[in-house]
């Protein structure tokens, strides 16, 4: 369970961003989360509330967009989804594909700043 430490990193990052833009606080943090990030959404949401306490983010919301794994299929020669996390094969043609293009995201994409 390292989601609390991840949540604290999100809070630190958001505080810095808000401060650098002269905002007194943050209402919403938007996060992109891939299945290969090693982070569990529910645990992160729970930890986020704790990490926000007594910071300018207290009372803010974390909105998580879960994004799928995308690979470069060597047979289709194109971007493709995979069958599952337990089967990294092209969902179209079934070829095992180690070349991962997306799916490791753990990224703050945007924020709503309090004015």
């Amino acid at each position, binding site marked *: 369970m390292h989601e609390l430490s991840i949540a604290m990193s*999100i809070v630190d*990052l958001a505080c810095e961003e808000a401060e650098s833009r002269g905002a007194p606080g943050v209402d919403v943090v938007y996060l992109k989360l891939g299945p290969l990030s090693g982070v569990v959404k529910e645990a992160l949401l729970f930890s986020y509330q704790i990490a926000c306490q007594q910071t300018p983010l207290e009372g803010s919301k974390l909105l998580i967009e879960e994004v799928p794994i995308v690979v470069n299929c060597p047979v289709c020669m194109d971007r493709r989804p995979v069958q599952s996390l*337990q089967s990294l094969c092209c969902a179209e043609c079934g070829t095992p594909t*180690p070349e991962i293009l997306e799916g490791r995201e753990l990224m703050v994409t945007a924020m709503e700043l309090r004015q």
Partner: protein
Amino acid sequence: MNPEPRLVEVRKNVLKRNDVLARALRERFREAGVLAISLVSSPGSGKTAFLEKTLTLLHSRYNVAALVGDLATENDAARLARSQAPVKQIITGTVCHLEAAMVQHALEGWNLHDLDFLFIENVGNLVCPSSYDLGEDLRFVLLSVTEGEDKPLKYPTIFNSADVAIITKSDLVAAVEFDEAATRRNIQAVRPGMQILKLSAKTGEGMAEFLDFLENQRQRSRSAAAV
């Protein structure tokens, strides 16, 4: 009345601080010509026994050193020190994984130019270490034959984050009726193309092939660095 909140684009990785430190470490390893290898596995897979054996075998021909992470105790560092290689324990307290900053801190006082191989043994945990880049050149994931063939399917993220899978405790294959074909299939399902080595630190089976592999990797990384 409060004005409307202002939406701003950010696009920053949450672990950016760790990633920046890890990149700097990787550059230091490359510049010093040391091959850095991290080990991840569940607790009890035989990481420390495997590493002790590896350090002992390499010690006569190469300059090797190890960092070893644990929540508590210096027991593993004491075990590894029997190999005569320099070893430093990283005690993480309540933290369930190593981070790049811990590696950087532990390396203080060591001259990387004096080393050929650096091993970094992560905390025994198949979940959390997958998120943290330590600057290593290669990440080995260890899986002992006593653990069950479906472990890669249960922990796909860490297997996917690794470069090489090592099946340990091969001396116990018969006793636990280990299904090697199923294990290999499951590893390939979560990380297509991953190289798999099988060995026993106890009997030495597979260790010669493993050392050859290490030497090849070192040659490859040195010639890549020289380009």
